[in-house]
Structures are given as structure tokens and as C-alpha cells.
């Protein structure tokens, strides 16, 4: 990412004429930027900040606007943020020395790069590099007790003889002849400070530029507050999902242990008993051997399911934002020819608006395919109906597949997701067990009921995206 800090554009004769005026209140030359250009700049920065989800990107965007030649044209700019009782250097943009400035500006000019055009496509890696480049200066600019700074209300230009110690500190660290200081205040003291200067070009700072810089600094504050909040929410969400996954894993571990240890105990224990006390009756021996064989068969089935589930997790179940309604419609359309062939009515109900959920589109499709395939198989030969419906339930979104085929066998209905029994629909219970594993891998769950006879309902529930 190129450095900013390109020299400001030269102004036309008429503008130079206006520059000779002096603002009474600030002591600065009264040369205002053309309002349309400033408006364009604010609009461009505002649009870029709307997309920013990271405080560092937000800070870089505004500092870039301050330093870009087609922006406010400062040679360099720094942002200091009050954190943990300190006013810490957060980010800097621009060259570190005159030599570096000439080299970088020449390169920018040669490559015809317009730094302001880059704010729409921030590069987090490059921003990190920029932060590292200025790391030493940022540390030096930091103040251990920001409350010692007076509560300035407005931006100003400071010099080496400034009465306030903290300002003299910044001027000294930056070796600046005229340092723009833009304070950003919280209720109980400084929230942050933006510093900028023209240490290479020594270009004067005009009142209009100062006012524009102040506007940008306030936009920066709003963006940093918003993105910081967003980041905290994101981190909390990640912690919550991790906790839920841990809980799910614990429940899975308990369930698997139970499912594996029981048949292992039966097989091993019965074998030991046979060895310790062989039955005289051959039919008893055969029956007990049958018990062992049945237990081993269950173990094999559980191990296969475990392997499948683990493989699913090892695939890296990366979740993202997705539209559950669109997913449902997509899969339903894929099954429509099969439904027609089997003379089953297939309908899909979904809200007109998007139903955003956290999930994995590929895995989500596999889940819906499993449910639809089962439902269509169930209705085969009955001229039945299969309904796919998407709805929202608080923090969950439900994708339900209902069919009016024959009900589940009572044994299977007790826990259709256990994988211990075959479905009565020529499909396999193993498929439903996998469905549960896949749903859980996305942080979701599965549900089943047939309380509204003759409808048999299976549902995939995923967390709504927030």
C-alpha cells in the first residue's frame, strides 16, 4: 500500500488571492476548500466507513483522507486513542522523513496512484505494515495520563512554544513546526486526538482545511466507536458459539460413550461368562453367541457413525452468513423432477425477505437433501405431499420438511436421530444420525415431530445471523 502524504494541490490565482485573508478567531489564513470537493471527500470517506468492520481500517481510512493529495493533503497524520487510562498511539499514515517522503511521492506520481481511491478497498495486511512502520513514533506520542491534557473544545495549530506540556511533547516527538491538534472528547476527558502536519512541504494550514480535518476526526470517532462495538459483539458471538460447540461435544462424548460402552460390555462380559462357565445346553450357547454378535454389530455401526461425524468436522465446518430460504428453494427445485416422477406434490414456503443464518451452504444443502429424499421416499406410492417451509423462531431459523406419508414406526419415533435403526422408508437411520452431526457441526440442531397426523415433520434449525 502506498504511503499518503502527497503535497496539497496548488491553488488557482483566485484562490491564492482569497488565501491572503485571515480568520479573526483562529489566526489562520482563511482559505477554504471548495465546498463541493470537501463534500465529495466526506461522502467518499463516509461510504468507505460504512463498510468498515474493523477499527483499524476505520482509522486508516480517515488518516488516508487527511493525508491524500486529493484529500486534505497533510504530509502525515496520527491517531491517538484513550485506552486503559492512557492516550495511546493507535495508527499513523505518511512518510517518516523528508527523504522517505520524496521517494514515496515520486513513486506515487510515477505509478499514478491516487491514495484516496484506495480507501474503498482497504488492505488489512498493508494497514498492519503501516502501523508497524510508525510503531516507534506511536509509542513516543503516547501519554500515560491523558487526563493531564486540558479539555480543548476545538482543533488548533500548535507550535513548539505551546503552553500545554502534552502538546509540546507531541510537537517535539514529531519535530513539527506547525502541528494540527484535533481533540476528541468523552464525558470524562479525552477520547482521542488526531495530529497532522506538513513537516516536509511546510505548507500553511488554512482555516477551511482545519475545519474539514476536524469534521473527518469526528467521523473517525463515530466509526471507531461503531467498529469497536461490532468487534466486541463479534468476539462475544465467537465465544458463545465456541461454548455451545463445547457443550455439544460434551453431550456427544457422553452419548457416544454410552452407545459404545454398552455393547462392548455386553460382548466382552458375555464372552467372559461363557469362558468361565460354558453352558451345557447348546441352544444357550448359540443364544449367547448371538448376543455377542449383535453387540459387535452395534459397535461397528457406532464406529462408522463416529468416523463419519469426525470426518465431517475435519472437513473444517466453516460457517458463514447464508440465506436459508434461498437454500431451501434451491434444493427443492433440484428435487422437483423426482417428485413429479413419483407423483408427489412438492411445495416450498419461504418468507419474501431473506432469512439470514449462520451455516455452511454445502453442508446445509446436504442436510436438506437428506430430509427431502426421505420425505419423497415416504410418500412414494401414496400420491402424498411434501412441504418445505422456512420460518424464524427467535434466535433460530427453522427449515422444516413435512410429509404426509406413513408415520414412523414407534421404535424409530422414540429417537429417529440415534442411528440405531433403519428408517421405515427404505432409507437408513444412519442418514438421520449424520444429519444431526452435520447440523451440530454448523452450531445448529435437528428436530422431529408427528403430533399433527398424518404429517411427519423433520426440521433443521440454524442460528439466525446477527
Amino acid at each position, binding site marked *: 500500500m502506498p504511503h499518503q502524504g502527497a503535497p496539497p494541490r496548488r491553488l488557482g490565482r483566485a484562490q491564492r488571492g482569497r488565501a491572503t485573508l485571515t480568520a479573526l478567531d483562529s489566526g489562520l489564513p482563511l482559505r477554504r476548500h471548495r465546498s463541493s470537493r470537501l463534500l465529495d471527500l466526506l461522502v467518499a470517506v463516509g461510504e468507505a466507513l460504512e463498510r468498515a468492520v474493523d477499527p483499524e481500517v476505520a482509522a486508516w481510512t480517515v488518516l488516508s483522507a487527511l493525508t491524500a493529495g486529493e484529500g486534505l493533503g497533510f504530509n502525515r497524520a496520527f491517531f491517538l486513542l484513550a485506552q486503559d487510562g492512557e492516550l495511546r498511539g493507535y495508527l499513523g499514515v505518511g512518510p517518516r522523513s523528508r527523504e522517505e517522503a520524496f521517494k514515496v511521492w515520486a513513486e506515487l506520481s510515477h505509478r499514478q496512484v491516487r491514495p484516496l481511491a484506495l480507501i474503498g478497498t482497504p488492505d488489512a495486511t498493508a494497514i498492519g505494515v503501516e502501523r508497524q512502520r510508525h510503531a516507534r513514533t506511536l509509542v513516543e506520542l503516547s501519554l500515560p495520563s491523558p487526563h493531564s491534557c486540558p479539555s480543548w473544545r476545538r482543533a488548533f495549530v500548535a507550535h513548539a512554544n505551546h503552553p500545554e506540556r502534552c502538546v509540546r511533547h507531541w510537537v517535539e516527538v514529531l519535530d513539527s513546526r506547525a502541528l494540527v491538534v484535533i481533540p476528541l472528547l468523552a464525558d470524562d476527558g479525552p477520547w482521542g486526538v488526531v495530529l497532522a502536519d506538513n513537516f516536509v512541504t511546510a505548507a500553511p494550514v488554512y482555516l477551511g482545511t482545519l475545519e474539514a480535518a476536524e469534521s473527518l476526526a469526528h467521523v473517525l470517532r463515530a466509526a471507531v466507536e461503531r467498529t469497536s462495538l461490532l468487534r466486541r459483539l463479534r468476539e462475544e458471538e465467537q465465544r458463545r458459539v465456541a461454548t455451545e460447540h463445547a457443550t455439544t461435544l460434551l453431550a456427544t*462424548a*457422553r452419548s457416544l*460413550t*454410552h452407545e*459404545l*460402552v*454398552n*455393547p*462392548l*460390555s*455386553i*460382548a*466382552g*462380559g*458375555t*464372552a*467372559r*461368562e461363557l469362558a*468361565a*462357565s460354558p453352558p451345557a445346553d447348546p441352544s444357550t450357547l448359540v443364544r449367547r453367541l448371538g*448376543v455377542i454378535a*449383535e*453387540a459387535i454389530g452395534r459397535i461397528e455401526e457406532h464406529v462408522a457413525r463416529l468416523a463419519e461425524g469426525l470426518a465431517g468436522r475435519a472437513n473444517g465446518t466453516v460457517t458463514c452468513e447464508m440465506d436459508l430460504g434461498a437454500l431451501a428453494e434451491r434444493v427443492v427445485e433440484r428435487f422437483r423432477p423426482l417428485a413429479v416422477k413419483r407423483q408427489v406434490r412438492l411445495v416450498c414456503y419461504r418468507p419474501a425477505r431473506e432469512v439470514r443464518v449462520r451455516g455452511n451452504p454445502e453442508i446445509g444443502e446436504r442436510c436438506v437433501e437428506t430430509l427431502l429424499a426421505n420425505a419423497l421416499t415416504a410418500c412414494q406410492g401414496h400420491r402424498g405431499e411434501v412441504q418445505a417451509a422456512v420460518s424464524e423462531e427467535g434466535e433460530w431459523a427453522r427449515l422444516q420438511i413435512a410429509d404426509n406419508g406413513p408415520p414412523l414406526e414407534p421404535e424409530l419415533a*422414540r*429417537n429417529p436421530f440415534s442411528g440405531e435403526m433403519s428408517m421405515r422408508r427404505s432409507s437408513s437411520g444412519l442418514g438421520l444420525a449424520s444429519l444431526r452431526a452435520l447440523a451440530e457441526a454448523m452450531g445448529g440442531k435437528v428436530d422431529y415431530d408427528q403430533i399433527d397426523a398424518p404429517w411427519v415433520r423433520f426440521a433443521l434449525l440454524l442460528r439466525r445471523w446477527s
Partner: protein
Amino acid sequence: MTKPCVLFIDDEEGLLELYRTAFARLDYDVATATGIDSARARLGQGGVDVIVLDIRLGEASGLQLLREVKAAHPKLPIVLCTAYARYQDDFSSWLADAYVVKSSDLTDLKLAVKRCLEASA
């Protein structure tokens, strides 16, 4: 002298059959139940000296039955026998007199039953 009666409560019929064989050979009177309701019914008949209880009984919880039995028969020893060792950390299981992790080797379970009977004698 009457044989001590052990009531095994587990939803696995295969395990119950194993317990029947193994404990009958040790001269115990063995009773079995596959669920909470049948366990209550058997307990209602009386004569049970020790219970061996699984924690997961299908959709029901053995811990619920543990609390119920201990409330009604505080002196009746109960051995929790389950597949999952970490239930020991669950304070609900502390009411039990012994805790055994299920295994194909019934030595620990036999020992736990014997000790419970000796303690309650």
C-alpha cells in the same frame, strides 16, 4: 438363609442377561428392570437388598430414580453403573453408595455389590 437380592436397572436387555447369568452364578437372587416404571413396580414388591442402576435409561434419567429411591428407602444401597465416568463429577450422583464404570470385566461391579451388602448388613 435367603439369597441377597440385587435389582439391576438398565435399558440394555443384553446387559441384564449378562448380569443375570454372572450374578446368579455367585448365588445372588437377581431381579431386572429395563425402565423406571418397571423398577418402581419391582421395588414395590419389596425384598430388594441392593440396586445396580444405569444413569441413562433411554430418554429417562437414572439420577431421577436415584433421588426418588433414596428419599423413600434411605438405607437401600445403590450402585451407579454407567458408561460415562464423568458423571462422577455430577453432584446428583453423590447420593449413590458406589459408582462403577461399565466394563466387560464385572470384577468391580461384583466387588461394589458385595461391599454395599456388607455395609448394610
